[in-house]
């Protein structure tokens, strides 16, 4: 009973912190914009992140230099080459080249989304399960389509291997992929944001001034790491799933 009460109290406190942090006045409930109920905050944060990505990539790829690349250009190029290395290692270079744009987009979108939530009063689009599940379903459908495209009818064969009665297990395995993708990302990023809010709520202002900010600083730096890692894991798993379904079995 007391546990439930404590849970309730912490929830109240968290709600209070969220309320205090909500300086932009986003509605807490989903609003209907004409095509169904949407979380306005998530959408607006996504648009901001998209705008940032567009500014970043366009600034980086404008006036590209062959011999003396600028800092932004170098960042984008390094990121791209890192992802291309992963893709070419796991897929063959021909398939990898055709999917590079997608892989690059997924990575940069998730990276910016994850990092955006670390800025006070902002929220990661990926801290909403709608975003992560949407991305995961997108990847899931893409994987099925690519499997059909590259292996034609032979694609369905892998559901019945090694025996026909493995079908339920393979189906569950197949369906668990988007779910794990979605909830892994969502859990990590949402937990990070919750803990940021909790640290703000738990430590009173006076304590914060006299060293209490250290906990937040440490957690924020760890969150930066987690953000990069989660973006990488999502991208890497996407590559792995695609390589699984497009690899030719002999």
């Amino acid at each position, binding site marked *: 009973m007391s546990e439930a009460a404590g849970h309730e109290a912490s929830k109240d406190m968290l709600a209070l912190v969220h309320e205090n942090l909500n300086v932009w006045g986003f509605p807490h409930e*989903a609003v209907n914009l004409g*095509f*169904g*109920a*949407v*979380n306005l905050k*998530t*959408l607006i944060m*996504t*648009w901001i992140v*998209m705008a940032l*990505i*567009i500014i970043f*990539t*366009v600034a980086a*790829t404008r006036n*590209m230099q*062959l*011999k003396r690349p600028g800092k932004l*250009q170098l960042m*984008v*190029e390094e990121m*791209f*080459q890192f992802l291309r290395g992963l893709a070419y290692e796991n897929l063959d270079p021909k398939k990898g080249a055709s999917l*590079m*744009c*997608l892989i*690059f*987009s997924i990575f*940069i*979108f998730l990276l910016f989304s994850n990092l955006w939530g670390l800025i006070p009063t902002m929220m990661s*689009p990926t801290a*909403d*399960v*709608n*975003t992560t*599940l*949407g*991305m995961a*379903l*997108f990847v899931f459908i893409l994987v099925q389509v690519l499997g059909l495209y590259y292996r034609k009818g032979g694609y369905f064969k892998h559901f019945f291997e090694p025996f026909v009665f493995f079908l339920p297990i393979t189906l569950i395995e197949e369906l668990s992929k988007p779910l794990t993708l979605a909830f892994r990302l969502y859990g990590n990023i949402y937990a990070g944001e919750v803990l940021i809010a909790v640290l703000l709520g738990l430590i009173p202002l006076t304590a914060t001034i006299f060293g209490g900010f250290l906990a937040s600083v440490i957690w924020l730096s760890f969150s930066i790491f987690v953000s990069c890692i989660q973006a990488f894991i999502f991208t890497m798993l996407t590559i792995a799933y695609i390589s699984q379904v497009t690899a030719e079995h002999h």
Partner: protein
Amino acid sequence: MDAIVQVLNLNSTLVAQVFNFIMLLIFLRVVVYPHIVRMLENRQEFIANNVAAAEEDRKQAETLRQQYLDELQMAKNEAQSIIQKAGKAAEEQAHEIIEAAKAESNRIKESALQDINREKEKAVAELRDQVATLSILVASKVVNEKMSVDIQRGMIDEFIKEAGDLPC
């Protein structure tokens, strides 16, 4: 199903987010991606060209080095042959000089011998003359007037002939 949707707070945001992502994907594909790929390709090509050029340069340098080495070897050989020729010539010349010197010394010796002989003969003739004169003087003193000058002369000549046959 509805319960799951309720618990997870799923709504149309999901569709909107997929749509947003696809929009971003299209934008990056159209605006950003070609630049990056082209730049990387250009750089790869640039590096490949540089490597090829460096390889070419290296080959050229190797050829030049070989050429220079050959030329150096040729020059060395030539120098060697020149030195050999010069040595031979010097030897020949030395030989000639020695020969000439030998001939000269022989000639000088010959002429000296001739001089000596000539002097000797001259001295002998002079001595003969003086002996004759002295003998005549002595004989004339000794014989006085008993013998004519002609007889004396014959006797003296005979004596001198005998004396001349003696080795002196």
